């Protein structure tokens, strides 16, 4: 089961849950004031939107939501966490991902499909991709200019905007990163808006990202099952 957190001001929570369900996962919405994640949660998605009105800085208030303590514990234990757009901002503010997001260099809200290149296809969030693959996924944000810390290892960059596609001035054309441990990912583009062709994106490439996450849960569950079988055999 994948938990999609709903903050006051989230507005892509249902899209995310719907896209995950379409890809065969069970998704459940979790309220920001809950202090625990439901039993059986295998991954957490922090969705896009304008949590707490984006007051002060995007994501700065949401990081103190009661549910974030549980999300942090879940991530520290190796659980898979994916932050999309505002969710990426929340993960950066919470220190679960390095760096920060600033207003777009154009100062304009940008809402359009962008072309991304896959830098790493060996993460739980991009396993359906090939290295160097180009994905078309929409962005829609006013504050998506990613500022990495000076010492960000290049290996943590998972997605970059393709040449000429950078919509916000992100340093190094960075569109998505993973944590050093590799189990937490954040990205500004919205894969959940590019799964169902009905939503009108130029592609359904969002399924490469969210589908990878769904695959990761399946293979993890399979590993646990095999471990259980082995344990039973040796018992």
């Amino acid at each position, binding site marked *: 089961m994948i938990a999609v957190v709903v903050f006051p001001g989230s507005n892509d929570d249902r899209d995310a849950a719907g896209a995950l369900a379409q890809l065969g996962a069970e998704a459940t919405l979790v309220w920001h004031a809950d202090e625990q994640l439901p039993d059986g949660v295998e991954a957490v998605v922090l969705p896009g939107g304008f949590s707490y009105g984006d007051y*002060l800085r995007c994501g*700065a208030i949401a990081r103190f939501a009661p549910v974030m303590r549980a999300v942090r514990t879940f991530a520290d234990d190796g659980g898979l966490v994916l932050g999309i757009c505002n969710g990426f901002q929340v993960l950066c503010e919470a220190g679960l991902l390095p760096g920060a997001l600033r207003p777009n260099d154009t100062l304009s809200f940008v809402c359009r499909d962008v072309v991304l290149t896959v830098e790493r296809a060996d993460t739980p969030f991009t396993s359906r991709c090939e290295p160097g693959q180009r994905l078309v996924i929409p962005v829609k944000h006013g504050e998506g200019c990613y500022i990495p810390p000076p010492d960000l290892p290049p290996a943590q960059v998972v997605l970059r905007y393709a040449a000429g596609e950078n919509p916000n001035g992100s340093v190094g054309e960075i569109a998505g990163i993973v944590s050093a441990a590799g189990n937490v990912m954040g990205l500004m583009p919205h894969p959940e808006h590019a799964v169902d062709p009905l939503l009108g994106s130029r592609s359904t490439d969002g399924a490469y990202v969210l589908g990878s996450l769904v695959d990761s849960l399946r293979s993890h569950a399979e590993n646990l099952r095999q471990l259980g079988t082995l344990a039973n055999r040796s018992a």
Partner: protein
Amino acid sequence: MKATVFVRPKPGILDPQGEAVLGALRHLDFAVSDVRVGRVIDIELAAENAEDARAQVGRMCEQLLANPLIESFEIELDHA
């Protein structure tokens, strides 16, 4: 006790708001060479003394009011 916090984008961090204001001021024929836009936060708090107030507001800045990666902060106390 009253405190005022000034939060500014750190030098070298792109400040598109400052760039936009710079452009507008030049458009109004002001000879301006640089503009950075930050944020002012006025706070009223309970504190034993100035030292205590400064320490509390410093913690507020580190935990919430500023993002140390991209912003610097300055604290001013009003003892009146």
